[in-house]
């Protein structure tokens, strides 16, 4: 298959008072057009950093990101981001928040009426038409997150980057939004990278799950292909042997390796301290 989005040897050093801090080390990942990829890993291992590098908000120190063969080195509207905490402008209504993005992307190609229709269409996609004239502080957390998704979708991005988009939501809202996201992905065929902490969510939504190892110097640990047929129904799947097998695989992978590696890393750390040798890598947990 031909690669659409390619991360090759992506490494990043953050400057700290104690010298450079290697957060990511040699991340390699090839993503196909229209693919839905989940990043899963221990808190602080560097998932957001990977996403920010793809978004162009951070610069890789070594290696780089190619989108359709062109290097990514600054933010751009073709790589829309759904931020972890929605990041809507609090002084604009839901409609105006989406409008700001639409005006940026389509100011030359769409007329005023077309833009209006397009904004409303995208709010419709996330079922937010009824509250489009409300400001963020007047709507619930789930609604804010939906507006954030509508804003990103309305930019017709080549790649949709989502940083724990449903992390702060209750289970019901989360399930509802996951279903909407599957629908949207089916209809629009966006390429998606989504960070998540939720194994069920990762298995339900993804084509592949990318497991990251623990930081510092985190990298890709293992990649699990999810070959479940679409459309996927959460209730049916919960009784599906293959689904449960995949889910088990992720969990086992995370928790078994995690436990093994934690002992390993603790022992190794002690040894490192004694010998002052460079530290080894360890797998991440959820």
């Amino acid at each position, binding site marked *: 298959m031909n690669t659409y989005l390619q991360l090759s040897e992506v490494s990043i050093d953050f400057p700290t008072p104690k010298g450079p801090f290697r957060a990511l080390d040699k991340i390699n990942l090839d993503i196909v057009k229209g693919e839905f990829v989940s990043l899963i890993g221990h808190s602080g291992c560097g998932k957001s950093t990977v996403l920010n590098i793809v978004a162009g908000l951070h610069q890789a120190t070594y290696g780089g990101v190619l989108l359709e063969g062109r290097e990514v080195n600054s933010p751009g509207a073709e790589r829309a981001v759904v931020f972890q905490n929605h990041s809507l402008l609090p002084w604009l209504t839901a409609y105006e928040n989406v409008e700001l993005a639409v005006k940026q992307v389509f100011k030359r190609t769409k007329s005023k009426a077309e833009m209006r229709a397009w904004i409303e269409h995208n709010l419709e996609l996330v079922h937010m038409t009824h509250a489009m004239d409300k400001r963020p*502080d007047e709507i619930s957390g789930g609604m804010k997150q939906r507006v954030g998704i509508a804003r990103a979708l309305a930019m017709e991005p080549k790649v949709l980057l989502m940083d724990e988009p449903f992390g702060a939501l209750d289970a019901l809202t989360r399930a509802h939004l996951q279903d909407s996201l599957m629908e949207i992905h089916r209809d629009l065929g966006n390429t998606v990278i989504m960070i998540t902490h939720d194994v069920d969510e990762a298995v339900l939504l993804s084509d592949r799950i990318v497991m990251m190892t623990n930081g510092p110097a985190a990298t890709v640990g293992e990649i699990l292909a999810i070959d479940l047929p679409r459309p996927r129904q959460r209730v049916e799947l919960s009784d599906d042997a293959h689904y449960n097998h995949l889910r088990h695989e992720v969990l086992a992978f995370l928790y078994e390796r995690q436990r093994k590696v934690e002992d390993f890393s603790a022992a190794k750390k002690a040894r490192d301290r004694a010998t002052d040798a460079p530290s080894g890598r360890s797998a991440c947990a959820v």
Partner: protein
Amino acid sequence: MNTLSLSQLRRNPARLIPGPARLQSLAMALMLPAAGLLIFLFIWHSAANMIDTSLGKFPGPAQVWEQSVNLAAEHSAERQRAHDFHERQALRNAERLAADPAAMVEIRPYTGKPTFFDQIGTSLVTVLSGFILASIIAIPLGILIGLNQTIYIAINPLIQLFKPVSPLAWLPLVTMVVSAVYVTNDPLFSKSFLNSMFTVLLCCLWPTVINTAVGVANVSKDLLNVSHVLQLNALTHVFKIVLPSALPLMFTGLRLSLGIAWMVLIAAEMLAQNPGLGKFVWDEFQNGSSNSLGRIMVAVLVIGFIGFLLDRTMLLLQRRVSWDKNAILR
């Protein structure tokens, strides 16, 4: 029983505070300040009776009230004189024109002594001119140094140096510069007005500059990321992201500036003998009649009250432009 009363409450939230209690809290809101005022007046009255100055007893509330009535009367008398003067002049000119249609008639302005109310007007115009001009300079400057770390590092020492300078130190310099630079035969503004205004301007720039800069520099990282991903241009970035974020701190700065402007103006007017409330106070002090202290006290109260009104006006303006109508402003 419990659910019933709850649903009733929900339908009518005003019931959360029972009628009598609400009345009580309203009464408290009016009674307490009134009580405070009465106690203040009583202490003022008793203290004033005990202070003997070279100009007689220190004025108590009664004398001050009497003087404020006098000042109002003097004002209407002066207005009447001006009115009469203009009428006489018009009549005289009309007679002259009737006798000789080719006669050159001249219209002279009335040159009376400015009354207390004229001085209030002068001071208000001066303070607002200085403040508005200062804001026009300070807000863009604050935005610039808030956005750009390099410019901030370059300019910050200067701001820190000039911020604490007393208006009285600026005044002689401003006066000399204005009379050297502002030379015209037909002045649109009087020099005294310009002196006071520029002194006010120089002193009230800083709070707005500093607070705007802090507000701009502290725009949330998340919103900055949104701006980057959307690739907003500089103008949209400032108007859609930076200014709304910085607005509360900007207004804090503007209110501080206006407060300083008003205090500085009175001092500058006193020192430079420029028309305004400050000059009124100084003239009364020099005058030294038995009424002077009472009249100065009237001026003191009026200065305080105008300062209060200016601040309230800014607060109203902030409510008007603020996007967050629920923010508690005080």
